């Protein structure tokens, strides 16, 4: 029998706390870009010349509030991550888990430095990497929370049966990678600081595909008369948003197919089927939030919710992909008949509660 890691509920709870704090941090980060406040504190690691932790509250005004709170929250996440890694190193006998904790520390340090460099080097491009690494770090700490859970320990080892179907796993992974790509597109759009490149939806400048010639761009920019004066929009930004829209459609279709596949192969009561259905719900919510972001002229709260649900969608897909590796997925009878393999009885596989320590 494969030995199972010991039950350490406090480690799991601490990992959950770290994941939750990271999730909140990403939300605050989204608010910083939604409010165009990323450069409101021009110095780093100091804040207006003060030690970051000693900036008087009276100076937390306007955009400074959002940027400063983001820095403080990042510090909290950094400290939580270091503590989590130490706890894992001291109490978890799985070597790969120890290195995963160390990777999380490396990630959070790199993330902090990237955030600081974005401020002092005044480079929008660094902001895109900062946003991408944030998502990867969130997935890492959520995976740690999963791996330290009782639920994970209760799962059987990965199925090695001849009738195991890796197709569902592949499409779960494919959808997750698509979502990550979509988040990169979104981060690129946000860090252009050009506001809404296309102000209407579902059409784009009243057309299926908007013209991007110089005269059209001049007209679009001429008609931008908001209080927040973003940079002028370019053809690249318009095309980027169109790709983001099309990608959303592809993801919606692919995740719906995932949910259908999981249900078909594993039955509606299997936790993977339920989770993939919830994933589809998230993607639908995310698509709706994307539309409302445009209809609300990029209201900060809506745009931030779009970032948060995007992160949640990526985490869900990542955890689904990881979990699917621990589940035997039966091949359809028709496929079995074609290959001549012996069919195994259809079993709804779920967590197996074991007393083994």
């Amino acid at each position, binding site marked *: 029998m494969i030995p199972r890691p010991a039950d350490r509920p406090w480690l799991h709870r601490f990992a959950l706390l770290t994941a939750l704090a990271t999730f909140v941090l990403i939300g605050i980060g989204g608010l910083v870009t939604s409010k165009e406040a990323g450069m409101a504190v021009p110095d780093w690691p100091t804040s207006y010349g003060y030690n970051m932790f000693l900036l008087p509250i009276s*100076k937390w005004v306007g955009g400074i509030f959002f940027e400063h709170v983001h820095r403080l929250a990042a510090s909290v996440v950094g400290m939580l991550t270091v503590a989590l890694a130490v706890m894992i190193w001291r109490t978890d006998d799985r070597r790969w888990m120890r290195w995963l904790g160390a990777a999380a520390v490396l990630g959070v340090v790199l993330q902090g430095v990237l955030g600081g460099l974005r401020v002092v080097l005044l480079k929008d491009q660094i902001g895109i990497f900062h946003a991408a690494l944030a998502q990867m770090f969130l997935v890492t700490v959520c995976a740690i929370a999963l791996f330290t859970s009782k639920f994970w320990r209760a799962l059987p080892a990965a199925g090695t049966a001849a009738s195991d179907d890796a197709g569902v796993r592949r499409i779960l992974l494919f959808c997750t990678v698509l979502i990550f790509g979509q988040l990169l597109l979104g981060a690129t759009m946000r860090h252009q600081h050009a506001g809404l490149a296309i102000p209407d939806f579902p059409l784009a400048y009243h057309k299926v595909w908007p013209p991007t010639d110089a005269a059209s761009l001049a007209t679009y920019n*001429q008609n931008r008369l908001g209080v927040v004066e973003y*940079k002028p929009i370019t053809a690249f930004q318009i095309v980027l948003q169109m790709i983001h829209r099309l990608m959303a459609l592809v993801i919606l279709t692919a995740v719906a197919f995932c949910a259908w596949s999981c249900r078909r192969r594993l039955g509606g009561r299997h936790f993977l089927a339920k989770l993939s259905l919830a994933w589809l719900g998230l993607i639908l919510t995310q698509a709706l939030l994307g539309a409302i972001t445009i209809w609300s002229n990029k209201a900060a709260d809506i745009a931030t919710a779009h970032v948060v649900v995007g992160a949640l969608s990526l985490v869900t897909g990542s955890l689904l992909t990881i979990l699917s590796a621990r589940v035997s997925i039966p091949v359809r009878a028709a496929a079995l008949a074609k290959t001549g393999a012996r069919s195994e009885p259809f079993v709804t596989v779920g967590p197996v509660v074991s007393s083994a320590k």
Partner: protein
Amino acid sequence: MVPVLAAGLQVASAGDITGTITLNGTPPPEQPNAQIAENADCGKMHTEPVTTHFYVVGANKGLADVVVTLKGGTAKSTGESAPPLVLDQKGCEYIPYIAAVQTNQKIVAKNSDPVMHNVHPTPTADGNKEQNKAQMPGGADVSFSFPTAEKFLRFKCDVHGWMYAYVTVVDSPYFAVSGKDGSFKIANVPPGKYTLEAQHRKASGGKPVTKEIEVKDSGAVVDVTLDAPAPK
């Protein structure tokens, strides 16, 4: 929208180019600035509602904030010896909203407000450096200069997300920004043939409207008309 250039080209006082910029059409309504009203510090600095000021149109449809420059001639920038442009932060707004300087001319940002600001120019031309400087209430002035010509170089304050100024950097001493009545004057221009360029951030699609002119010993008068966007 084809910009309409007024036909008038008359002789005026020696060496000066004078004229009026007129807006053809009705400008779109300005947007109320709810953000400034909701800000505890900045809102109380205003007794009247604050709006955007994309189109400042005076009597007889004179259009302010149009940058008028000359192409042609051999004159080079004298920016290093020119007096600085003062960009004030007052009532949580940049004053002036639209300005012009020569290359390497000093731009001095001052903070007349009792609140913190950051002064953040975001140039796009090669050689002009993006900077971001904090400015406390009553703090020392901060200076900038830019070596490369650039139209409407944006200054912003990230503490107050509605604060913007646009400074055009010109590689020549001959330029002007139209006043509230749309009038402008470029003084002491050597006689010769030039291309006059008038550009507003929004009118006529934000594109420059040009006119070939000849400046004589007695100067020239050039009137230019820019177009408001077509009604939606």
